[in-house]
């Protein structure tokens, strides 16, 4: 997925000289190729994220197409006000890349873990949010964000969970992508980012009738499509490596409650910081986001059927 990001970025920069990459002193090896191919479109803004975002606004105002890269703990969370006021307020075409979302930096602790970024970004008007699940969705999201000519946040989480598509999907903005067909009245999984692969694995193993959807577009959302999934009649389970407050699960629940209330299990981070450090898989387990824990939560949820 990171390679797909780098490739997409280089393509955009080569076809449009207005594309400028700003990084907050992050992305050491990730940008080697970009720096080699587009050295004049690369700026290391230093360890100064607030200034970097303000500058991106200034560059956008003078006709450039900035791509601002940082860790998602900092971009967008640390610079939320700059994104709100300097960029999104005027729909400036700046793409923010938040890398390492969720628990990627599992050994580094709370400062580098990011499970509130979608919630923060969702509340900002005019700001699109992308959350790709694999390399193909990443390519699609980069193209969509560039073509939208809008303020956008692209969340890049754990990137090596395996592919969920066979090719770059063709989708309109906001659309949920169906990965597995289900039966009427059966369970529907809606997942985003790193959790899509897990949703597919659980559904394929244990819920043959369930449908599985990937949500690479968090905002704007395709309300009619979500409502149609709700009308299918079965319960929903949302899955994200993000807080259950304000992220994908909240978004789906908000739409469902207004258009077609159904039971929804929101799998995500339950309003807590990590207690311990360890491997990525260890941290998923600590937060109940590993496959076994999710299957257990899901079984309990379904056994409590209304």
């Amino acid at each position, binding site marked *: 997925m990171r390679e797909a990001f780098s490739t997409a970025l280089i393509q955009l920069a080569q076809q449009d000289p207005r594309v*400028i990459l700003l990084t907050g002193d992050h992305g050491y090896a990730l940008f080697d190729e970009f720096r080699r191919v587009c050295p004049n479109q690369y700026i290391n*803004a*230093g360890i*100064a994220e*607030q*200034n*970097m*975002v*303000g*500058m*991106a*606004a*200034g*560059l*956008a*105002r*003078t*006709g*450039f197409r900035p791509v601002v890269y940082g860790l998602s703990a900092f971009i967008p969370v640390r610079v939320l*006000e*700059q994104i709100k*006021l*300097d960029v999104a*307020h*005027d729909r400036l075409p700046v793409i923010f890349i938040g890398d390492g979302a969720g628990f990627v930096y599992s050994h580094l602790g709370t400062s580098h873990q990011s499970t509130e970024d979608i919630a923060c970004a969702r509340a900002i008007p005019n700001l699109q949010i992308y959350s790709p699940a694999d390399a193909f969705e990443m390519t699609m999201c980069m193209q969509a964000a560039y073509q939208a000519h809008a303020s956008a946040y692209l969340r890049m989480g754990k990137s090596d969970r395996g592919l969920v598509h066979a090719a770059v999907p063709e989708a309109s903005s906001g659309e949920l992508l169906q990965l597995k067909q289900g039966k009427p009245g059966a369970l529907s999984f809606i997942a985003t980012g790193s959790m899509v692969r897990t949703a597919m694995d659980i559904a394929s193993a244990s819920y043959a009738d369930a449908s599985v959807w990937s949500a690479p577009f968090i905002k704007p959302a395709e309300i009619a499509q979500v409502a149609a999934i709700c009308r299918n009649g079965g319960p929903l389970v949302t899955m994200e490596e993000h807080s259950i407050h304000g992220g994908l699960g909240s978004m789906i629940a908000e739409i469902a409650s207004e258009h077609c209330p159904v039971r929804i299990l929101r799998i995500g981070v339950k309003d807590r910081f990590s207690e311990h450090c360890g491997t990525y898989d260890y941290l998923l387990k600590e937060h109940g986001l590993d496959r076994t824990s999710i299957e257990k939560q899901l079984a309990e949820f379904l056994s409590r059927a209304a």
Partner: protein
Amino acid sequence: MSKHISAFDTGNLRKTVLDMAFAGSTVHIGCAFSIIELLAVLYRQHLRYPDNDPAAPDRDFLILSKGHGVMAQYACMRELGWLPEEAFSAYFADGSDLKGLSDSRIRGLEVTSGSLGHGLSVGVGMALGAKIKGTDQKTYVIVGDGEINEGPIWEGAMFAAHHQLENFMVIVDENGYQAMGPTKEVIGLGSIRAKFESFGFLAHTIDGHNEAEIDNAIHELWADPSRQPRALIARTVKGKGVSFMEHNNIWHYTRLTAETHTHAVAEVMGDRL
């Protein structure tokens, strides 16, 4: 438009601010008055707006980062004919456009400010953009002395110096006050000039109410062959022009009455009334 008005007469600009503040029953008069001469000189003698178009792509950029002083900028924009008269008489009316802080959706205002410490970075980005494109556009950012408590000011200053943005000028309105009191009692700033010089700026200090001095300093700063960003430290008086407002921080928050409005207008207009 008469010649008198188009000359950015500072008494007239202050009267506009007073009339607006009275019409809208609003505050922030003191911090508008400290930048009147700075804005008058910039608009009259330095800023280039081809065809008097506030959105001309090849314009110079003026960013009022201390958005609280925006009424002073409205007063200048009125003289340029960029704002309709009713915007002034109906300031703060329900459904009106001109806000109490700078809003970039108003043609002629480059940024949405008021949350302090934002405008300098945006200006650095604009100066960088102009430099990459090879234009001769200049970028000016006006910050308050209280505002430079904000960290991003210094992040942007470091970047501007490192990238040799010689087309960038920060103007510090050093009126000595911030919202809750004198800067030296809140967060002492020491020498603002020395701070910017140590960050790599070419800096001048001037009397921010002396129009000839302001004009000369801006010319001198741009004329210097150095590739440093520029800093103009303007020593100013909060509430300048009205005796009972000068150095009196209560006019950061106080609303005009009919009586104080009349007295203040009489002072700023003198025998021109």
